């Protein structure tokens, strides 16, 4: 048994490194000067520099990347808060009541972000146009809320389903009211699940590109949209581009690693019942 560990371990390391290589390249290049970044193969041991980041924040052009970053924060945080407000009661209602098999299946399809997003593009563009909310960040907030709502309800339902029915019954027998039950029995189990759901919704909204690209312009453009434009205009400046890509990735990296354990549990428990 012990002998078999070594090749497995080496194989695991190798695949991990292969997966992370492009990302490592990005982070490393972002800390190089433009002239070091331009060499090929990449100069791994060149001196580190913050030049790329200074350039990204507009050191020489004076063009600030803050508005799109702030738009992204508003859209992701705003929609995540709204999702939680709507999804927590819905998930609670669905988890304490047995659901019929058919509605369970229906639910499953609504929830998994399975439908082709591109199919909804035109109607949603028209809705935004008629309501005068094109290039308005609040439209993205509401749109992302509705896009993430099903998966949030689904995830939270699977977390809430872990609360043993006996505990709820015991609480009822002891004469605990709804508030006490929620606070003492449900919350301790549900809070980590809610946190993970929030992080997952945050990641999905932060990364969303297709709708943001079509529905926003100069005012409400989000960070991914900005980055796409940046590739076209600044693609030749590798250090600056990699700095931009690193900054845009940073929030989802933090959220992703914070949610990692629950992400696995939530997505797989939810997917297989």
């Amino acid at each position, binding site marked *: 048994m012990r002998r078999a560990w070594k090749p497995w371990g080496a194989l695991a*390391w190798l695949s991990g490194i292969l997966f992370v290589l492009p*990302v490592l390249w990005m982070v490393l290049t972002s800390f190089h000067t433009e002239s070091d970044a331009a060499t090929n193969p990449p100069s791994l041991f060149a001196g580190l520099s913050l030049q790329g980041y200074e350039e990204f924040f507009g050191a020489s052009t004076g063009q600030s990347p803050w508005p799109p970053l702030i738009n992204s924060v508003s859209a992701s945080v705003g929609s995540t808060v709204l999702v939680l407000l709507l999804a927590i009661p819905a998930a609670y209602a669905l988890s304490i009541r047995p659901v019929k098999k058919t509605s369970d299946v229906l639910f499953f399809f609504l929830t998994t972000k399975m439908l082709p997003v591109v199919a909804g593009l035109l109607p949603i563009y028209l809705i935004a146009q008629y309501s005068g909310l094109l290039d308005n960040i609040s439209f993205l907030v509401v749109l992302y809320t509705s896009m993430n709502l099903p998966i949030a309800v689904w995830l939270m339902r699977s977390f809430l389903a872990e609360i043993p029915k006996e505990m709820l019954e015991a609480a009822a027998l002891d004469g605990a009211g709804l508030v006490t039950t929620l606070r003492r029995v449900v919350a301790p189990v549900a809070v980590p699940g809610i946190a993970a759901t929030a992080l997952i919704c945050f990641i999905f909204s932060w990364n969303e590109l297709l709708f943001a690209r079509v529905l926003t312009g100069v005012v409400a453009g989000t960070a991914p949209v900005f980055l796409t434009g940046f590739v076209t205009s600044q693609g030749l400046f590798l250090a600056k581009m990699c700095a931009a890509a690193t900054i845009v990735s940073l929030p989802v990296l933090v959220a992703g690693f914070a949610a990692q354990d629950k992400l696995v549990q939530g997505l797989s428990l939810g997917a297989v019942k």
Partner: protein
Amino acid sequence: MGFVAPALLLIAVFLIFPALWTIYIGLTNYELTGPNAVAPQLVGIDNFVNALNDALFQNSLWLTALFVLGSAVIGQNILGFVLAWTLRKAKPGLRRTVESLVLLAWILPSTVVAYLWFAVLDRDGGTLNSLLGSEGTAWLVEYPMLSLIVFNTWRGTAFSMLLYSSALAAVPPSQLETARVVGASGWQTVRDIVFPHIRGHVLTNTLLISLWTANDFSPFLLTAGGPNHASETLPVFIYRQALEGGQLGYASAISLLLLLANLVVAAVYLWLLRRKS
């Protein structure tokens, strides 16, 4: 019911209503500009008939099938399982590290990963060419579908890996031990002991990653469907028909066909799943 109503309302407005509207637009000759933009007319099923005779549509249908088969059904599924199977025996620290590294590719914004691959695969300055000594190979132009399939396998394997990891944890260790004692090979163990236990997981995983891949828009960021439609999967085809060609009615009809294809795949999945139990 009161708890669920606000959520249902929002889903109805932003998911169900747009889907119905897409069906309607698909039956018209709505265009982005010109007279049909002002007063689109109902044309019945003309768009669908045209689609079936459109060589470009057939091309992108075939490319989508190839993309799904190559990168999801084969690539992500098998690589994900092999990683989960390998990591099962690794030390917890190593396992967590490798899982995190694989997960990186899955959670990064598609703009970022597309740019990274663009830079790594670049003909002149790309790192891949200097590593392989294949200077001057424009991967995204010469092998667009192969590049997309490798890209999407890299991008999506994390999900399959994590799902199979938790599925493997449910296989009774005593049965694996028995297999080891009787001297079963790794492949025999997987086929006869592990697979029957995780059949449901394999089906669910394959369904999810297939649909996600079929609907994925990131190929647009890498190749924009080119060169000359050689990597134009259906979402890219729809996007280009609508925004570059201005054929909104036609694009909506194709969206609907993609939606129907999704539902057919899902129905087959449900049938397979039910046959098991």
